[in-house]
């Protein structure tokens, strides 16, 4: 294999995405705490660095120097493997997410490359597949800890994820019908332009129900409030990661935040027109992408501090009796619409 500028650019891009995902987790920790403080009329972190901005750094250092503990009765191999599965799946899912138009980096390269780690023509399904693999991290963590709280957390989480994965998939499928492709890049490009020069051609306007289902199921999939049952602290101490400490705990933490970023990024690509938007030229489309993802992430945090946690039976009833039928109806209506009006 010869080393071409394109190859180098691709490797740099991949590393860049990796580092940015790590950073996004740090930023999200800070934002989460600051927004929580704002909503609850507190100050939040303010001691480390200007306005407490170096707090995530201090947290990381603290996590690194904590003692790594393992229960005596735990299954050593799986106990070590579980956080690795979680973190790996979180990173891997973002690999197929495009976050900008093709670019030559201001003429640095001879031919443009896509702002995306891997362009797969079944990208949407790949994300779905990796998300379904990520469940194993949590389930195995729950089982291998050999602790009641962890096991209950793991079982809850697997039941919850299986229940909401169906609605999640159905919502995805209805967007695929409208976009007529399985490639995220194609779907984003399908949303370029505007109707009557005013309303952007985003799928959220074609698929409002699909967007709501996707976001609801996405919150359930990432185990965030108000669906954070796997780690409901009042009942389960900390759920599946009760027995974890130090960096293996940090890996679960990291995975949760990166999953949030990935779900937001996928929602942006599927429903909010990806990097397309007014005013900013297409080569700087990633700015729009960042703004949209940021808005969705803020929405996540906002939800957490606004809504109380549901009861577990309410969560299950909502998933199976409301969300799933709704998503099936939405899929059928979409299919009929695509058949009638053409894609």
């Amino acid at each position, binding site marked *: 294999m010869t080393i071409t500028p394109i190859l180098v650019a691709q490797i740099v891009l991949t590393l860049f995405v990796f580092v940015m995902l790590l950073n996004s987790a740090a930023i999200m920790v800070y934002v989460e705490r600051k927004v929580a403080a704002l909503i609850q009329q507190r100050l939040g972190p303010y001691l480390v660095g200007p306005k407490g901005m170096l707090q995530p750094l201090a947290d990381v250092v603290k996590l690194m120097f904590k003692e790594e503990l393992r229960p005596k009765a735990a299954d050593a191999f799986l106990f070590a493997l579980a956080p690795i599965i979680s973190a790996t799946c979180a990173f891997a899912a973002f690999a197929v997410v495009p976050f900008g138009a093709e670019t030559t980096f201001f003429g640095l390269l001879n031919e443009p490359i896509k702002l995306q780690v891997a362009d797969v023509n*079944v990208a949407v399904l790949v994300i779905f*597949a990796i998300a379904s*693999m990520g469940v194993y991290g949590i389930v195995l963590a729950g089982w291998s800890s050999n602790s009641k709280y962890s096991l209950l957390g793991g079982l809850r989480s697997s039941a919850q994820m299986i229940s909401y994965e169906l609605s999640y998939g159905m919502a995805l499928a209805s967007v695929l019908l409208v976009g007529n492709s399985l490639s995220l890049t194609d779907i984003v490009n399908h949303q370029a332009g505007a109707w009557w020069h005013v309303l952007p051609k985003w799928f959220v306007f074609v698929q409002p129900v699909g967007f709501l289902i996707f976001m609801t199921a996405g919150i359930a999939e990432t185990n965030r409030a108000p669906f954070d049952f796997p780690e409901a602290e009042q009942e389960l101490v900390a759920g599946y990661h009760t027995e974890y400490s130090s960096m293996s705990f940090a890996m679960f933490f990291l995975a949760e935040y990166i999953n949030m970023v990935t779900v937001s990024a996928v929602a942006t690509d599927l429903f909010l027109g990806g990097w397309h938007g007014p005013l900013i030229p297409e080569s700087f489309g990633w700015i729009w992408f960042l703004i949209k993802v940021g808005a969705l992430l803020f929405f996540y945090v906002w939800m957490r501090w606004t809504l109380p946690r549901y009861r577990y039976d309410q969560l299950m009833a909502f998933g199976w009796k409301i969300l799933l039928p709704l998503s099936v109806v939405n899929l059928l209506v979409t299919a009929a619409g695509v058949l009638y009006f053409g894609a």
Partner: protein
Amino acid sequence: MGLFYLFAAVSVLASLLVIAQRNPIYSVLLLIASFGALSGLYVLLDAPFVAVIQIIVYAGAIMVLFLFVVMLLNAPHEETEYDERVHPLLRPGPMRFGGLLAIALVLELVWALTKGGESGPFANGAVSSVATIGRLLFTEYAFAFEVTSVLILAAMVGAVVLARREEWR
């Protein structure tokens, strides 16, 4: 070609280990690994759609349910109710039936492998395009497709009936 042997080796090894060790959780995980390797083989066959579906349906959905059940029963080791020194074919009835099935499977595999047939990527990307698969599924293989769905429906009805047995009396 190197990738093929890698995936094939992982798949075969993992499958053997599934039955070779006694902890059901590890069996489930090894089966997932085997499915993952199979999906790698599908990618090499230029069928990314089938590969991803393999992961979503088998490694994702079905195996999570397996794991769920194993965890609920919380059985760290298989219970052995028979003498392990006795040859499988000389053990009680169900065991002997299992042994016969295994022999039948080996014979079938030998037959299938010696029969030969075409290998390598399919012509004109028949399995790589989702549209093609969909069209084939709803035209040429419509009958098999519908029969499969009725079979799954029957299994679902059966599960519900078994789960609610008390109320039916």
